[in-house]
């Protein structure tokens, strides 16, 4: 199930409409210097999580700045909620997180939120209430009086995210929202994005991190060289209609062999693969950290609490991790696993020993690593490197 399917609020109302958008940066003498965005068309509808995907310098951030009226288009037309991006009242419905946290370094986190709350004409009680909830949500409830300039990049990012939500926006534009965040922060941001979409909010997300986009987005456009190279729902773009995946609880060896015999009857052995589904690294990491957290205290950002009450509305948040599992358990299974397992144990069906290993009931993924997994050549995931990264993130514990 994609995020679109999990957000029934998505309907036909067009929130952002971009037609023939072109942005050419010029030099001092007005000579064209760079064509950052070139004839781009797309529409974003209410309740959608829309991803702008592309390598660095492909025009994602420029598109976002054009949507916000921070840049003027050279050609083309933009409408946000039916108005020009420079229309001031419309901005009260928008929340924006830039690619860097451009905050006032001399303000503390509380004052930062209060300042932006004032720009939305919120009264004091409302500002205080929202600031309190947002700071709790982004895990900075304990560091309210420290100047933002003293914060780490990740903590600044969290404040940046909080300011983007102070007005309970209908359209949230997030430019590289997970940049600089630790895996816990990344997961929380993704959860938040899903929560916002469930409340009927529209989210535009720009990222070059494929997993971010894949985990949460309903529709994406892929940029390269300022042009849109692909545009569609994740289902449309990622589904492999010529293959099928069946996920079941662990089966006894006999049952498995029966099933395989039936399958072998129709297709050749080399086209069938059996493996253990593995959780992704993010889920594994969070599991380890959650265990470690029970004993440790950190002076940095804490894991955020639940999504701020005023942002939650009636919708309960389903974590993006759960969504990934949902996708895996779909009977259709018409598309590949969104986040590939780190230790993808690809096994040849003819290898009886390995089949036996797979048929063992409670074999943990990490233990399977020894006998079975061989990373696919197309997936450059190295467990030892991942292990090193984990160690670094966990303060050197191996």
């Amino acid at each position, binding site marked *: 199930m994609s995020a679109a399917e999990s957000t029934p609020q998505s309907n036909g109302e067009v929130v952002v409409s971009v037609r023939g958008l072109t942005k050419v940066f010029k030099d001092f003498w007005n000579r064209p210097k760079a064509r950052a965005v070139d004839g781009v068309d797309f529409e974003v509808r209410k309740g959608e999580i829309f991803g702008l995907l592309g390598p660095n310098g492909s025009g994602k951030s420029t598109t976002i700045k054009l949507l916000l009226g921070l*840049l003027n288009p050279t050609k083309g037309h933009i409408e946000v909620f039916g108005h020009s991006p420079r229309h001031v009242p419309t901005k009260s419905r928008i929340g*924006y997180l830039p690619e860097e946290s451009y905050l006032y370094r001399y303000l503390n986190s509380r004052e930062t939120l209060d300042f932006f709350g004032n720009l939305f004409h919120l009264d004091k009680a409302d500002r205080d209430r929202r600031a309190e909830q947002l700071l709790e949500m982004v895990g900075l409830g304990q560091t309210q009086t420290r100047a933002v300039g003293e914060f780490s990049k990740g903590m600044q990012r969290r404040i940046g995210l909080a300011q983007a939500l102070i007005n309970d926006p209908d359209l949230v534009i997030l430019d590289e929202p997970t940049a600089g965040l630790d895996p816990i922060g990344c997961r929380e941001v993704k959860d938040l994005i899903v929560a916002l979409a469930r409340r009927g909010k529209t989210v535009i997300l720009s990222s070059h991190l494929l997993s971010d986009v894949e985990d949460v987005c309903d529709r994406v456009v892929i940029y390269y060289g300022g042009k849109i190279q692909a545009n569609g729902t994740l289902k449309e773009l990622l589904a492999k209609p010529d293959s099928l995946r069946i996920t079941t609880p662990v089966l006894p060896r006999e049952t498995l062999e029966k099933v395989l015999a039936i399958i072998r009857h129709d297709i050749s052995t080399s086209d069938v693969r059996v493996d253990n589904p593995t959780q992704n690294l993010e889920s594994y990491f969070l599991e380890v950290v959650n265990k470690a957290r029970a004993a440790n205290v950190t002076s940095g950002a804490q894991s955020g609490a639940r999504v701020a009450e005023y942002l939650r509305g009636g919708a309960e948040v389903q974590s993006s991790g759960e969504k990934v599992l949902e996708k895996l358990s779909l009977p259709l299974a018409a598309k590949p696993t969104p986040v590939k397992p780190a230790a993808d144990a690809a096994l040849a069906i003819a290898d009886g020993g390995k089949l036996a290993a797979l048929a063992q009931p409670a074999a943990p993924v990490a233990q399977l690593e020894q006998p079975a997994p061989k990373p696919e050549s197309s997936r450059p995931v190295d467990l030892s490197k991942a292990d090193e990264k984990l160690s670094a993130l966990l303060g050197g514990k191996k």
Partner: protein
Amino acid sequence: MQRILAIAGLTWKAALRFKLFLVIAVLLILAVVGLPLIIKDDGTAQGFTQIILTYTLGAITTLLGLSTLWLACGTLARDIEECQIQIVATKPIARWQIWLGKWLGIMSLNTVLLAISGTCVFGLLQWRAAKLPAEVQQILHEQILVSRGSAKEASSNADIESETERILQNRLKSAAVEKVDVFEVRKQIHEQVKADFQLVPPSYQRVWKIDLGNAKDFLAGKPLQLRVKFNSAQKSASGTFLAMWQVGEPQKTKLWRSEPMSLAPDTFHEFEIPPDLFDATGVLTISFENPNRTALLFPLDEGMEVLYPEGGFGLNFARGLGIIFCWMAALAALGLMAASFLSFPVASFFALGMLLVVFSSGTLAESVDSGSVAAGNEETGQVGHSVMDVVLIPAFKGVLTVISLVKSYSPIESLSSGRSISWSELAAAFAQVVLLVGGCFGVTGIIFFSRRELATVQGTQ
């Protein structure tokens, strides 16, 4: 308004957290308290008080002016360079509100700084005055720590112009003059006629008729003061010249004749005259007789002035600070205008350059007077000509007109000579300096800022 005030509050927070407010406040207080310790005066209490007022208010104006300009350039340009404006401008606040908020922030900061430093100057003056002997205190309160109205002779410009024109026409009739030289001939005749109006040859008399206007109604029984200044082409052996004064009109008013006074040229002299010497219409007649062997010249603009008590020093001082505040408002608008389209260093350079133009307005005025930017020949008196004159001279005239709007007020000079700064003068300064000049800077700055693409720079945080 909540949004504008939020932006203004941000300027305060930045000024306090970066200790800018503290540094400027300390510098101002040091200037106010420290300057009187190192400056030299003429030894009199009046002279010392005048110098304290001139130097301290001058230092306050300079320090505040520079910090205002720097802060105005910095607060907006740095927000753009460090990209914070990219978040602010995506909130429901119009660009003009951001601009106005920045201006208000700077001006509220200036208000507090001006109030602190002004209170220090005022307190210092009162404290020093209180330690003086009673008679010196009285003089001080009559001449400097007071608000005195001023009356001068009606302008003679119209008479000078008509006389110049008459003589020029006669000259042109009697002898042919090259068309290109008419301008120069007229200028020379004008200077000559003007000199005739100012000059008092030996044994001649010069009479001023000065209308006190409505002030006559409250001046009955009050002594007045004459403030005079003259120049001399030659030096006397003693360095001074004799002066004989008569005030009042025979058979019409009471008469007062002075004892022969020995006065130095090129400086101001003030002396008291008895009350009730003006006639029923409020016209005061003053005669000067030149008993010296050399001609004396009383400048038309500052040669003779009648000063009369009008009010207290405190309120006058506050009005003087009010005019300085108006200047700061225009400077803040100038700095913000520059930062609306330039980066911080370039904006500061631009704003300081503009300030330099204001200070060098004398050179511009000379060029406009001579009609050319090219240097003339001093030996022949020939005026220079340049191809640029067609463009530059009208441009200089325009710039001078704007500068004169700002520079036509001189609160420091008025305060140090005990002259009153009226409410109407303060209102006019507000209208001209803040609304007109500052408003022009503001409108220009807001237009530039509203059209500017705010996301063309990458962050420098």
